[in-house]
């Protein structure tokens, strides 16, 4: 049977010469009658030839080889895989939005501009910051925007000697990579024993060369950076700026405003905290919010309101410039706007509260099996580790693969780097106790398997369409295309 319906046949392997999925009108003139021969392509591209039905079946069947949020608990730490309401898919795709051209007369795109303006306002309100740009296409792109905003700020103040960005060892890899792309030297600092910033270590490296300190709050071990206000003062005393990586904003939504910590800027991930789906890798959206003194340096244009009209504000002489073509990932922004319009002052706190409740519940129930690396109440995610002596040689990667067999997507693993064999679990606020109980049950069952039949865990997954993949085999002689 399996050979007949080969499960992962490529479209090109199903291709039959002469088959078509869609037809267009015949053009009045042929290309060779319009353009000189040297302008034309010589051979047809090797694309599959399939009917519409073949195509629909091909991609439908491929989709069924995915775990996804709609079908599975997806506790991928730091990725905030919360439910993506179906209404937002429909509404962001409304023809009025989807058909708007970025260079259309602004009188004809007032609906989109109004929405974007109001989204900026809502983001300002939930973070307490003074201005937002919606342009960045993803979190890392937001980081780059933030760091370049800082660069433009220091340039305007003639502080060219500030050439360093300080990053703790718990940071996402994007933080140092971003700083490097922005032309800064990265200074790494070790975390303290409690998982938070080591203030002494920070003080040692802060100087008049420091441009920015990048912190994730709560940090990547799932703990609130308890001295954040003091850190902000230290950073400012050194004349530097404090950047907050907002990847973990879900822990704070409706409960605290980052501006009150004393930060100068942050990015948000609309595809995480604001319920836009991740689409298997993107598109995301990473708006950047800043305190008042940095607003003039944001990318241009921002969306402004002039009288009753909404306009793209292009005149920003101190702007860092453009960070992408056009104005941002608008379809994602529309979803985030929908999300925020479904909450009010009373209910917004449920986001952080339920996210934190769920994460602590999992942490506590798994305590005797996979203890938290830092034994303290966590925020929206918990970072667990292994009791090495009981593991029979089983590693975190094995546990992750075995979870797939139990019908759960795996948590984030081996991150943050300071936690050996890290298992980072982020349930989000949209899961409930019953689902978490099932997940805990699976984790406990795997723990028992590690004791009694470690080989099963070692060989996992056993019940997926493919067995454990040898990732090294892909890199040896890369096959990246047909």
């Amino acid at each position, binding site marked *: 049977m399996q050979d007949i319906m080969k499960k992962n046949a490529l479209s090109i392997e199903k291709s039959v010469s002469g088959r078509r999925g869609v037809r*267009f009108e015949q053009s*009045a003139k*042929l290309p060779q009658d*319009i*353009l000189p021969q*040297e302008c034309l*392509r*010589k051979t047809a*591209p090797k*694309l599959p*030839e399939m009917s*519409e039905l073949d195509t629909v079946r091909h*991609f439908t069947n*491929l989709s069924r080889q*995915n*775990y996804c949020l709609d079908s599975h608990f997806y506790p991928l730490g730091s990725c905030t*895989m919360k439910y*993506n309401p179906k209404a937002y898919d429909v509404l962001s*795709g409304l*023809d*009025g939005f989807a*058909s708007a051209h970025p*260079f259309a*007369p602004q009188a*004809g795109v007032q609906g989109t501009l*109004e929405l974007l303006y109001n989204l900026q306002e809502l983001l300002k*309100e*939930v973070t307490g910051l003074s201005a937002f740009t919606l342009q960045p*296409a993803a979190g890392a*792109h937001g980081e780059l925007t933030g760091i370049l905003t800082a660069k433009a700020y220091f340039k305007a103040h003639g502080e060219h000697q500030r050439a360093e960005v300080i990053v703790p060892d718990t940071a996402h*890899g*994007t933080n140092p*990579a971003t700083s*490097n792309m922005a*032309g800064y030297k990265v200074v790494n600092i070790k975390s303290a024993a409690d998982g938070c910033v080591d203030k002494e270590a920070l003080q040692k490296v802060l100087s008049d060369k420091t441009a920015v300190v990048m912190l994730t709050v709560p940090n990547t071990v799932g703990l*609130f950076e308890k001295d954040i206000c003091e850190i902000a003062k230290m950073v400012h005393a050194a004349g530097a700026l404090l950047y907050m990586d907002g990847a973990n904003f879900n822990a704070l939504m409706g*409960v605290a405003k980052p501006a*009150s910590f004393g930060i100068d800027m942050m990015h948000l991930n609309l595809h995480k905290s604001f319920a836009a*789906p991740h*689409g*298997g*890798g993107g*598109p995301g959206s990473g708006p950047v919010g800043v305190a008042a003194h940095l607003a003039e340096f944001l990318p241009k244009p921002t969306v402004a309101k002039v009288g009753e009209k909404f306009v793209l504000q292009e005149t920003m002489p101190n702007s860092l410039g453009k960070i992408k*073509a056009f104005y941002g*990932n608008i*379809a994602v922004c529309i979803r985030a706007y929908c999300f925020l319009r479904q909450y009010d002052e009373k209910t917004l706190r449920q986001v*952080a509260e339920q996210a*934190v409740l769920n994460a602590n*519940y999992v942490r506590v129930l798994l305590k005797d099996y996979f203890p938290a690396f830092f034994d303290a*109440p966590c925020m929206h995610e918990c970072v667990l580790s292994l009791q090495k002596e009981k593991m029979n040689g089983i590693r975190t990667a094995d546990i992750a693969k075995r979870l797939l067999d139990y019908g759960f997507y795996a948590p984030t693993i081996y*991150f943050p780097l300071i936690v050996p064999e890290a298992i980072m679990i982020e349930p989000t606020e949209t899961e*409930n106790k019953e689902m978490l109980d099932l997940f805990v049950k699976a984790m406990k069952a795997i723990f028992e398997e590690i004791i009694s039949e470690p080989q099963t865990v070692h060989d996992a*997954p056993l019940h*997926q*369409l*493919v067995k454990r*993949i*040898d990732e090294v085999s892909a*890199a040896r002689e890369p096959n990246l*295309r047909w």
Partner: protein
Amino acid sequence: MFTSNTPENEKEMLSKIGVSSIKELFKSIPENLLYPSFNLPAALTEDALHKHLHALAEKNKSYLNFIGAGCEEHFIPAAVNALSLRGEFLTAYTPYQAEASQGTLQTIYEFQSSICALFNMDVCSASHYDGATALAEACLAAQRVSNKKKILFSAGLHPHYKEVLHTYLKNVPEIVLQEVPLKDGLTDQNALQTALAEDVACVAVAGPNFLGQLEPMQALCDATHQAGALFVAVVNPLSLGVLQTPGEYGADFAVAEGQSLGNAMHFGGPGLGIFTCKQAYVRQVPGRIVGIAKDKDGNRSFVLTLQAREQHIRRERAASNICSNEALCALNAVIYLTLLGPEGIKEVASLNLSRAHEFKEMLVKNGHKIKFAGPFYNEFVVEVNTSAQEVIEKLETQGIAAGYDLGQVCENLKNCLLVCVTETKSVEDLQKYAQALRGF
């Protein structure tokens, strides 16, 4: 709104955790920072939200659209969104757990393959943010490969691409950016020759360029290579159904905005950054790449590969900081290309080419001046007898989006309108626009 723990759930959970209230879980946040006030509008039910968003969408006007300039209106077959909006694709994350993400991984492999076939290039990444950022990354990669400091770019690049290039590259101390001017709507080859000194890392040229003109990509590429520099092509992917491909003229890197392949305009985003290169530069590619691997039983499977380039492994020494990309837009593109196949892509590109030329003939007959004489694909420049801005404003009231006002980028071109004609326009549409343009 979308939480579902009941008060009973909450009670049980808190008791297991060993605290008496949720607030206790936030003890690590200083008390004075907790629970500030939020000035938010009243929460909407789903029903009310629908009405609100419909009302906003209706404030946007529907035009008979002739604007291109980096974002084009094309027909999107219904199967594209019907498939890509399936929750299995839409609500999955980056495929870190390959065994449970084979669907997404295989679609990315097929995307990479289809784009390589269309471009005649060796390697394609899983996607980048948009055409402009893909261009900036390609120039950075070319600089790393060649270890030379100067990056030349044609003045014919999209103005936004030029700005993004500046934003990305001006912060790398060892890079010098230099613009090569246009002559008669095309990159000035003499000026390029002069600029091609020994320290040039790469030359970036768009074909078609921002004025719609087909650059002599072969000649520009050859001249670049003769000077020992790398050639970075910016192309319109749909046009490659008929136009000479970057692989054919020997480009080292070829990037593009892939929105025209099955993605809606959406006020300019999300776009689809396409990043391709020659095999030799595969380890300089920014972001995700999917490759074929073997599972334990020796069966074919798909994984994210060559990850040693990436930020989560290499941190400050990574090729780029990119993490999230535009996977769903890439999925739209590969479904679109699969539906069209080699014949369909040729057909739709031919139709764009042919309709645009039909329209040009109509305008010439009506006595309009076409600004540049060279070959073009689906976009060209009309010179009108008043400011392009005025034409745009007048025609807007008739429901026609007349084009892009080139006066925005060049004072000398303020009477020039950049007009794009795609397969979505019927001959009647063209006649309607031509009629409205009489007298200008």
